[in-house]
């Protein structure tokens, strides 16, 4: 039984790898701070209405890239035999959102329910494309999610997506390589991490303790998140704030500037062949990644099984315990749906009903956002051979509780991330002035926001 499960796990992890890349490119969510007063509480839908809708023959269209989500959908259709759900994968990441936007713009062909990463929620709220799920019973779920997760999908009373998976960040490292270099433990603070990087580099002139990709805004946002910076926010209407100044941002920028200038970190683009091979060949001895990272790494660097360990992210102050989030997504209902009750039920059910939700975590290896699954022993007690038998899920579920709340996003994260690569990423690649890169990023974002008619704070 156990080996069977493992084999299935290994296989699924390879399959899941593709989708996780996408999650990787993601960031956090649609938290919009405290500006909930404009969202007038919609009227609650009564249980009779719900029962009636769920026993009426209905067709739903569900756009998602999550592998094998058909399993969850099949369970849903068994539960509600009158409802027929068609699952369509229109692509991942940018492709998915472009097509979704086009369909919404065209007024036909849009799905009822769509996969939606946290950081894209605001962008679809902007066009009033997301249905408020609160009247359909989503509000009651608040207590079933870590506070920071809920703040990513809600604004005041309104709820814009049912969280599916999240990416609280930790540190995966090659225990064998660190020990060889004389580093006994995973660095607990960033200061120790820098010292370790130096020691490691002296012992291994061809490899690095870690890699800072020049294209990965999501990871960098996670670092900012952990450091307490809150660079972005959106009020749900016309005002955005873009602020990449201040001590929290400076701390992160100065740290990585030093790491780059002293050649303590490589700058390879991530999720490319070069990078995959770097991970499996030991070019990078650690990866500061999200909770979806452990399974992803298993599929990517299979030859290094048993050599990796997981630890929390290094901290800014000794004794602290704070993390950020990188990636994760929700299922959101489009406001154009003609079957809001059934659509809302689909989004809710597959992510919160016992069987489908647990299977998302144990079969599809999505790191659960939903606390009952997060605390389920079947999930927590899994021992990962790849990590020398460590209970990696347990560790990350503990990390999940340490992610700080109220991290906001802009309603144009596509643009923000692509601009990141050309400003901050360029500075990383050139090992140049990271502060100037961040400054250029901020200026570019502000001028874009103004051109698009936003009020910038």
């Amino acid at each position: 039984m156990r080996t069977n499960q493992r084999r299935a796990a290994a296989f699924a992890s390879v399959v899941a790898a593709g989708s996780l890349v996408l999650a990787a490119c993601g960031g956090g969510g649609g938290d919009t701070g405290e500006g909930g007063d404009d969202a007038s509480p919609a009227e609650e839908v009564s249980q009779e209405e719900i029962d009636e809708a769920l026993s009426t023959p209905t067709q739903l269209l569900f756009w998602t890239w999550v592998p094998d989500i058909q399993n969850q959908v099949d369970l849903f259709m068994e539960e509600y035999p009158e409802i027929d759900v068609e699952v369509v994968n229109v692509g991942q990441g940018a492709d998915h959102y472009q097509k979704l936007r086009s369909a919404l713009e065209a007024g036909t062909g849009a799905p009822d329910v769509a996969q939606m990463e946290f950081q894209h929620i605001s962008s679809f709220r902007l066009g009033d494309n997301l249905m408020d799920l609160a009247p359909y019973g989503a509000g009651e779920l608040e207590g079933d999610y870590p506070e920071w997760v809920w703040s990513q999908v809600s604004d005041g009373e309104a709820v814009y997506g049912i969280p599916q998976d999240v990416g609280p960040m930790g540190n995966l490292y090659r225990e064998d390589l660190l020990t060889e270099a004389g580093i006994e433990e995973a660095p607990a603070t960033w200061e120790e991490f820098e010292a370790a990087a130096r020691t490691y580099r002296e012992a291994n002139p061809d490899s690095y303790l870690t890699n800072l990709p020049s294209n990965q805004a999501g990871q960098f946002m996670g670092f900012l998140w952990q450091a307490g910076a809150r660079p972005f926010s959106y009020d749900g209407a016309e005002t955005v704030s873009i602020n990449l100044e201040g001590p929290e941002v400076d701390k992160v920028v100065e740290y990585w500037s030093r790491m780059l200038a002293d050649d303590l970190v490589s700058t390879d683009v991530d999720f490319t062949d070069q990078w995959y091979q770097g991970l499996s060949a030991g070019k990078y001895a650690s990866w500061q990644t999200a909770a979806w990272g452990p399974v992803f790494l298993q599929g990517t660097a299979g030859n290094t099984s048993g050599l990796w360990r997981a630890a929390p992210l290094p901290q800014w102050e000794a004794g602290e315990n704070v993390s950020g989030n990188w990636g994760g997504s929700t299922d959101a209902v489009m406001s154009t749906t003609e079957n809001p009750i059934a659509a809302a039920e689909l989004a809710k059910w597959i992510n919160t009903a016992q069987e489908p939700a647990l299977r998302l975590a144990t079969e599809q290896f999505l790191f659960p956002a939903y606390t009952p699954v997060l605390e389920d022993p079947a999930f927590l007690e899994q021992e990962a051979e790849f990590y020398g038998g460590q209970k990696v899920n347990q560790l990350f579920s503990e990390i999940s509780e340490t992610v700080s709340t109220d991290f906001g996003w802009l309603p144009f994260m596509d643009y923000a991330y692509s601009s990141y690569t050309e400003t901050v990423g360029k500075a990383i690649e050139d090992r140049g002035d990271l502060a100037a890169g961040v400054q250029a990023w901020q200026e570019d974002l502000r001028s874009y926001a103004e051109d698009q008619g936003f009020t910038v704070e």
Partner: protein
Amino acid sequence: MSTSTTSAPPGAARPPAAGRTGRRKSLQRPEKIAAYLFVTPFFLIFLAMIVTPLVYSGYLSFFREQLIGGDAFVGFENYADALQDSAFMSGVLRVLRFFLLQVPIMLALSVLFALVLDSGRLRLQRFVRLSIFVPYAVPSVIAALMWGYLYGPDFGPFAQLAEALGGSAPRFLSGQWALASIANIVTWGFVGYNMIILYAALRSIPTELYEAARIDGAGEVRIARSIKLPAIRPALVLTLIFSVIGSFQLFNEPSLLQSLAPTVITNAYTPNLYAYNLAFVNQEINYAAAIAFLLGFVIMIVSYVVQLSSQRRERRS
């Protein structure tokens, strides 16, 4: 092939003149109708898939839609902006450089291969012809992915080979080399395509000309220079025009290699890539439409210049 050109084209055979006047009228109309029927499917698709989107994007280019504040008619403002947009201009200059660098090499190789094949002195002629052509049959998406792997800085075969020999391969996708690396991929893909066009043109030259030249004592090189090359000039101009369009519309290769070198191959690396990113990343569809139209004009002008200069040369010679 050359024999078929000497025989009368079969289509020239006409029905006998007797009784022609009486039957002709009755035949002509259905013939005409049939002809229109045959071209209708093409024109319908052409209208729906080319003309309509063209007109629509032309229409779009005169508006500006903001994320906040909606849609407004702005006349030629988008075009004026584009002409002052350094990202667009440097993209145009980049593809111009690409054109000047890559096209001469590619066409020279195509001519060379076509001449060698046409000389008939090669063994395994078919095999060689096919091998040169095969890269064109590889979809450019696959080709770019494959080359992306070959160019890999640490683990790519070139890098490994260079290391084994004690040297180091250039960083193929660095700012200095990226354009040349892309040019290499495009050359690899399109040499065979152009070669086939030129080879077909060579095969249609009447062999009597060669016999006459040989009697006059001309060698293979002289024949190539004085008979073959002038004879395939129209085909060469055709490939050149195709190459102008291809170069200025460069998209697939940079778009796919972008994930490997995002800080070098930026969103505005080529004008086409820029238009695409403006539309789908920046959500500035109107501005993207204006950029696309301007690029179209640039291509028209360059193509026209190429054609004009080749015609002038023809007249002079």
